[in-house]
């Protein structure tokens, strides 16, 4: 575990917000002897920042995939913005996904498109007018501090910059919930802190964030609720 110093002032987590995402008694198995998630219940409240920790293979990504409808639970229900998630209702799922953003450990940027095109892609596929796309892309890139790299291609960017492009793409649609799947997993400690600081700032502007990491040191940098997955069960950890 890397020793790091706090980069942002810890904020007080609230528990008064509206529930915007919920897992009720969710079990998910992939055919192994033990289920990946076993009767997991979780409520994400609007305006909160959650860390989801656990070792590699503990089911963090599975939990996120269940939340964004990429997987279906074997048992239990998943609700997003008050609606039951059913990946088979493709159009409804698309509508729900427009209310959230997702970022990944491996950034998932398209190598043959520039930074601005990568960010714009999220709006282009929703059919927004060109002028609005341009305006939103500029705002999103400004927010992550990459306005000057709009024309660059992902290969020419550092890991941290690529992740910031990925965050801009997730934010450009104006999501209410941001799911961050190990966003610092491929980054060095200093860059990881920068990314965490960025997400923390976004949270302070009202964004709900679910941040998965196996690096407990990161959770010490800011004071947020910590959820821990262990042997398929979800536990709430006290802040270190």
């Amino acid at each position, binding site marked *: 575990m890397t020793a790091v110093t706090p980069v942002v002032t810890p904020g007080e987590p609230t528990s008064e917000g509206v529930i915007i995402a919920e897992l009720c008694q969710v079990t998910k198995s992939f055919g192994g002897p033990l289920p990946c998630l076993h009767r997991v219940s979780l409520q994400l409240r609007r305006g909160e920042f959650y860390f989801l920790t656990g070792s590699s293979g503990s089911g963090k990504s599975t939990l996120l995939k269940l939340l*964004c409808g990429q997987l279906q639970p074997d048992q239990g229900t998943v609700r997003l913005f008050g609606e039951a998630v059913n990946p088979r209702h493709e159009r409804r799922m698309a509508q729900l996904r427009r209310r959230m953003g997702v970022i990944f450990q491996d950034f998932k940027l398209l190598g043959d498109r520039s930074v601005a095109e990568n960010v714009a892609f999220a709006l282009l596929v929703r059919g927004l007018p060109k002028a609005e796309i341009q305006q939103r892309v500029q705002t999103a890139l400004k927010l992550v501090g990459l306005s000057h790299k709009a024309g660059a291609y992902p290969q020419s960017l550092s890991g941290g910059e690529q992740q910031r492009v990925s965050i801009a793409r997730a934010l450009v649609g104006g999501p209410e919930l941001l799911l961050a799947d190990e966003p610092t997993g491929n980054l060095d400690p200093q860059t990881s802190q920068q990314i965490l600081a960025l997400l923390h700032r976004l949270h302070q502007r009202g964004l709900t964030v679910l941040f998965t990491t196996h690096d407990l040191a990161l959770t010490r940098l800011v004071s947020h609720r910590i959820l821990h997955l262990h042997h398929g069960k979800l536990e709430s950890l006290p802040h270190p």
Partner: protein
Amino acid sequence: MANLSPFPTLDFLIPEVRRSLWRGGWLNGAAVIAVAVTLFIFGWGWQVSQLLSASVESLGNRLEITAYVSPDLPTAKVAKLREELAALPGVADFTWIDRDRAWAELQANLGLKSKQGELDLFETNPLSDEVKIRAQSLEQVAPLANQIAQKEGIESVQYLERALTGLQSVQRVVRGVTLMLVLLLSLTVVALVSAILRLIILVRQPEIEIMTLVGATQTWIYTPLFLQAASLGGGGGLLAWIVGWVSGQQLQQWLAQQTSFRALAGNASLEWSAGLGFFLIVIGVILGLVSTRLALQTTVPMPK
């Protein structure tokens, strides 16, 4: 963000299809050629079938039904029969050759007009009245012959039934073989093009994943793929028509110099019409779309 446009906009589609075609590289060429070969064979099968139809039709139009009138038929009934035959539906041309005229012609043909031969062999005219009838179309020849045979006073009816049915059989075989070949080749093309599209889907998987996660509907995600396949199929159809048109021109020029062909096919043409070209392009597009549907069914995973 509200649901904006249910169908992909051109701003999105044109660059996406262009990008996908560019990425497909030589695989696109393979798909176009596969479609083109199938449609080329189909086109030629169609042309040969049309040519045979024209030949059968042309031959059929020249086929005459010959009916022989009973010599014992009273003169009053002969006149009535003549009227009835002329009034039969489907009769294009009607010629009555009375027995005296026929006998005179026969004698002239045999050179029996000289004194020494005249009517030496027969005391009376041995011939009967003869009717030559041409039907309006090939299909009407056989039914018309049957109708004539049933008329009172008709002794016998003759026409080239064997030749006619033989040609019709050849036409049926050509159509059947073409259809079967095209069906088999179409299946091959659909399998090949859908395999190519599956590869393209795999190449585009990162984009598809991102599109899904940012809330694109399947219509937005997969319409570029359908358009790509339709353009490959349409391109194959166009290529088949161009090659067919050129080869048709060459063959037509060569066959025009062949007397036997002119006699058989009359004015039938082997040139590939613009209508056939349009038809081939449409079939190519349909093959492309069917292939895409198949590729998506076997590639796109449903959430488990």
